[in-house]
């Protein structure tokens, strides 16, 4: 069963002399796959991730997420899909600095109107899966880079999303720490999580199950 189906999706920016960030991209991602989208900067890979994450709409083409045409949904419904079905991991973590790790993880539950009574318990479980239980009461400033990214991963998986979208998840980390995060992804992949990961680093991409390359807005499957 496919989770993601892109049908000739294009994205242009600007009207006069438009920039073609994506040119008729088609992509199928099966449930449980771990896909790396590899490309140099300016190749359109961030645009692709934003469209996959419903943070941006394609100029043309259709995006089916779990067999639904999400490109035609209202903004409110798209926000609802984001809150329930997609987990985000960013290069720069985006943790709220004045909240503890647990509180940061709990944040991803509020916009789906999640059950307040079980929220903290679920956050504790997510932190266990991300192997960060020992730091649950820390403020982000006291965490190492790798620990911050683990907190972000715990936040992303709190609601058991169908799809984990990662934007250069190891970009701000040294190689060893980055590998630890990739180990974590591998475990989640083994548990059946669908992961789409953007990277410019071929070594990071090599950890994934499948690689697609994007150059000048054209997507090509790696051999």
């Amino acid at each position, binding site marked *: 069963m496919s989770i993601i*189906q892109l049908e000739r999706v294009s994205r242009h920016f600007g009207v006069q002399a438009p920039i073609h960030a994506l040119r008729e991209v088609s992509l199928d991602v099966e449930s449980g796959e771990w896909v790396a989208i590899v490309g140099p900067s300016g190749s359109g890979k*961030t645009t692709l991730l*934003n469209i996959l*994450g419903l*943070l*941006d709409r394609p100029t043309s083409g259709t995006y*089916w997420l*779990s*067999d*639904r*045409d999400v490109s035609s*949904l*209202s*903004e*409110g*419904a798209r*926000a*609802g*899909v*984001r*809150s*329930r*079905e997609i987990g*985000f991991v*960013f290069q*720069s*973590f*985006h*943790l*709220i*600095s*004045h*909240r503890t790790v647990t509180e940061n993880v709990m*944040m*991803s539950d*509020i*916009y*789906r*109107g999640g059950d*307040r009574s079980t929220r903290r318990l679920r956050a504790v479980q997510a932190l266990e899966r991300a192997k960060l239980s020992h730091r649950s009461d820390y403020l982000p400033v006291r965490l190492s880079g790798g620990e911050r990214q683990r907190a972000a991963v715990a936040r992303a998986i709190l609601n058991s999303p169908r799809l984990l979208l990662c934007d250069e998840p190891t970009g701000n980390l040294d190689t060893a720490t980055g590998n630890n995060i990739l180990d974590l992804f591998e475990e989640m992949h083994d548990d059946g999580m669908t992961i789409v990961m953007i990277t410019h680093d071929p070594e990071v991409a090599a950890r994934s199950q499948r690689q697609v390359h994007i150059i000048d807005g054209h997507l090509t499957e790696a051999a």
Partner: protein
Amino acid sequence: MSHIRSSNDRRSSISFWDVVTEAVSGLTARPGRTALTILGTVIGLAALVATLGISQTAGNRIVGRFDELAATEVFVTARPPTLSSPDNTMPWDSPERLRRLDGVVAAGNLSVIDLGNTLVSTSSVRNPTERTDFRLSVQAVSPGLFEAVRARLATGRLTDQLMSERGEKVAVLGATAAERLGISGVEQLPAIRVGDQVFLVIGIISDVARQFDLLAAVIIPEGTAQNLYRLSAPETVVVETRIGATSLIARQAPHALRPDNPEGLKVAFPAEPQRVRDAVQSDLDVLFLLLGGVALLVGAIGIANVTLVSVLERTGEIGLRRALGATRRHIAVQFLIESGVMGFIGGVVGASLGTLAVVAVSAVQTWSPVLEPMIPIAAPLLGTIVGLLAGTYPSIRAARLEPVESLRSAT
């Protein structure tokens, strides 16, 4: 492939409790800055509450003074004679006539005697080393005047009807006049010279409630002034009425005194006390309200400013929230609540400080503090409205941020 619309298409939602928690958490993240931001609203609303309270308190105070004296006095004088009305004099028995009117408490004649350059002294012997003669006002009174001006006798006695009828050369001194002449008591039977005439000082008055120039005057009986100075008619009748009777007496007095020629008399009485209260209070209120309003405006600009800075600083957080499922509306509501809560806290603190200020000023001035209960209650409401208005533009800015671009900026 079929297009399936399931119940999973529903919009994202956030519980009221969660959105309040998020907003308050945003405020407590930088408590120092939040406190400073609120300070402007605090000052504005404290100023507003305090000035309203103090103006009410002070207004009541001023009115209190008017009530006590002004509401009970009427002066009747003769107009200068004209061709159509050559005889505008008042009768000698004016006080008796007026006292028959219901509402008159006391009445008395008062006439200033024009003595030219005549000086008043205590002795016929001139002492060259110090000044012994003074130019003092000499005023002729009927016995009822002392009551009408609420004179307080310091020592001796007052002139009476018999002395007036017999034209006795006696005088009562005002406290200031007595001091200048060096007379402190009447046991030694002091005498004063007014020009060529010698008067026996029989009493000294220490205070009056109206006609304060009596305190610096030599007061002689009316009959004596008729004999010695050819006083032809009383100049003024001073009337003390019961409270609230001034306008009534003012209408009746000319008819009681000169039924044949009421237009020849002029009646002076102060404005209605109620009108005075309104005038004084509205003047003060407008000024004070303007001051408080300006302070509140400054406070609102402060909240708008800091909320805007906060939005720009927190673009990363806003992007994250959008990624987690927040709609533009959720973002706007969160920032609106943040600014509204700031305004509310400013209102509560401001109302408290303002009320304290009213009480403190009243305590220092020994006034009774007066504050409309709605004012401190309305202040937090006004503060919230100010906060919401101030937060509108920053909230719209926050909601308009594109999540993609916000996420690219580092947290």
